[in-house]
């Protein structure tokens, strides 16, 4: 085994297939996308090179700014649900409350369901006439709070964010729970003997030890909510009047509907840059030394 791993030839041989796939389906499209973003083109007639005009146009594009705002709201919403709330749930289950494996499955379940199905289900829940939300408000004598959740420009994006929060809270909980289970129990025994309360154990022991995983998780959360597409597309298609548009749905709209592929590529590039920046921020914010135990 060691011999195989020492030989450069073997390494190249084993890495090559994955590397090729990455170049063809990852690297090349990214570069091509950047090149396209410098053109005004519908990919059919001859494109016109316009330099960074597409980027400066973006800054005046109300719909783009709206999508950007929506994406940032979604990052905030997801972060709230998938960090503190998921951590809280994970910590509960970690302490082996009754039926913890049952709850683990229950919380994880929504993230296994296909996004379009979740979208359709919630479209019914939010329906202004027979939906669960408005019926519940009626039942609680709060009819004044009733809204046409998905048709009102002011509520639609929040309505969708709630679904995203709900859908993936279990997914991140499982990741964080796995990290917690990786910590040797003896550390907790020692902490308990020294008189640390459960809260102190969580803050001083659990959190620092799962920090590396939290970093990965934070990157997943942020890039995931920046790239979000399926639920928005299934529930509202970005409407009404682009009020629930996010960057990826707007990119789809500009590309496949108005056939301004250059402009769509520009949005794609901005999305990539945003993701890269957020990864950088996570790396700085969650800086930690490697822990050996």
């Amino acid at each position, binding site marked *: 085994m060691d011999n195989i791993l020492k030989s450069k030839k073997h390494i190249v041989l084993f890495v090559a297939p994955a590397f090729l796939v990455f170049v063809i389906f990852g690297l090349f499209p990214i570069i091509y996308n950047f090149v396209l973003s410098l053109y*005004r083109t*519908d*990919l*059919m*007639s001859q494109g016109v090179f316009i330099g960074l*005009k*597409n980027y400066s*146009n973006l800054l*005046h*594009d*109300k719909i783009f700014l709206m999508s950007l705002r929506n994406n940032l709201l979604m990052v905030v919403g997801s972060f709230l649900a998938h960090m503190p709330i998921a951590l809280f749930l994970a910590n509960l289950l970690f302490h082996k409350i009754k039926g913890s494996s049952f709850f683990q499955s229950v919380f*994880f379940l929504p*993230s*296994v*369901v*296909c*996004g*379009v*199905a979740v979208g359709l289900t919630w479209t019914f829940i939010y*329906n*202004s*006439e027979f939906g669960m939300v408005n019926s519940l408000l009626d039942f609680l004598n709060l009819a004044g709070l009733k809204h*046409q*959740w*998905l*048709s*009102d*420009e002011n509520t639609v994006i929040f309505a969708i964010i709630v679904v995203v929060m709900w859908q993936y809270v279990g*997914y991140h909980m*499982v*990741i964080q*729970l*796995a*990290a917690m*289970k*990786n910590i*040797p129990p003896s550390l907790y025994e020692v902490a308990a003997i020294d008189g640390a309360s459960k809260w102190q154990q969580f803050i001083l022991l659990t959190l620092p030890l799962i920090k590396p995983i939290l970093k990965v998780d934070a990157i997943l959360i942020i890039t995931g909510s920046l790239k979000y597409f*399926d639920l928005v597309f*299934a529930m509202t298609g970005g*409407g*009404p*009047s*682009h009020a629930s548009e996010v960057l990826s749905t707007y990119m789809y*709209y*500009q*590309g*496949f*509907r*108005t*056939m*301004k*592929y*250059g*402009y769509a590529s520009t949005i794609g590039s901005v999305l990539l840059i945003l993701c890269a920046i957020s990864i950088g921020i996570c790396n700085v914010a969650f800086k930690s030394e490697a822990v050996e135990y």
Partner: protein
Amino acid sequence: MKRKMITVLTLAMAAGLALSGCSKSADSTSTTANKENNQTEAEAAAAEEKKTMTAMFLGSSQDQAVVDIIQAVTDEFNANNDYNVEFKFETYENEQYKTKLATVMASNSAPDVFFTWSAGYLQPFVEGGKVYEIGPLVEGDQEWKSRFNEGVFGPVSYDGKVYAVPHGQTVAAMFYNTRIFEENNLKVPGTFDELKQSCVTLKERGIVPISVPVKDAWIAGQFLQQIANGAGGMKLFNGTVDSSLKWNDDSYVQAGELLSELVEIGAFPDGFLGMTNDEGRDLFIQEKAAMYYMGSWDIGLLSADDAPVSKNLGVFNIPPSNTSAGNVAIGDVDQCLAISSNCSNIDAAAAYIKLFSDTAAQEAYAYNADYLLSTKTSLDESKLSPLFIEVNNMQQELSGVTPWLDRVFGAGEGVEFNNAAQAIIAGKDSKEQMDNLQQFAEDNALR
């Protein structure tokens, strides 16, 4: 411990993969037809030598009648043609079709024959050199050319060249329930004010006046366009198309204000902002709404035997608010077929398309799919639904027809017009929305 974590992470990733895979398959309803299961071996051997050509059509489960026509024509062509080719076709639902066609066109893998809408929808493909100019083929075959009505090639002509062949026509109309109108002593409105008055009366009696479900923005856009037709007539439409008039022209703003007035008097059903097209149509079919504004493609569903409303159907064109605008309605040619420029056998493709204007196919378009025809095919009135005849008569009396703006202007300005209409109907200011639309049009030209 580490292994456990890896297992969990792997599971989570697998779930993620399953998710993305699922979302792709869930909305794909494409049907690949043409499976020759019953071929004898001899026929199969002959078929092997045949060259296969491809076609792509619009057709969801709701337009089964259209899919049936395509199937029949394709079978007929495959059974007997001089070109030794065989056509295979695929059908897609509306949104999917648009995405699919845009993709195959951009990647040079367009099918030989494809369905298209008129005007602005086909334009970028024509300008990109992706569509074969079918005009000379039709001109060259006088028998083929003579089948069509005057002027039907206008909306599929670019720079005077014809790029598609239309096989049907559609017109938008206000369908109404004659029983509800009679019971409430209402007449077909002759002016826009009378229409508004009828709405007030119906609302007072607890009946939904007009079912306009606008979850999909194009239905709002269609309704606003018709009111604008009544405010500015053909002059407004032509001016918009040749861009001598702007989107924030007084007539559009005024039309938006009239629309807001209708909302204020409660002309539309509760929750209409979030209502889907199907739900809106259902209100009318179940006789809960007195009127329903939609394109003539709904004739079949409205006059189906099991529809409670089917015996009480009437139709009128929404009267103009400005009488000088004339009797204008929204309408367009439909079921257009075109040949792509990378077609492998142009003559075979033309012969295939020609079959769609044969009497048999045209009769099926009228009798089964309720399309007004673009050809001179004479129809047997006894086989047509009464509503079809009424719509046909209404169309004859029009002084002008404006194609749907989202077809003329395509996805950019056209769709934004729909969005503006949706915003106005949801309570936004008409002037502000139309100013925004004009601003968008100017910005979008530079992108």
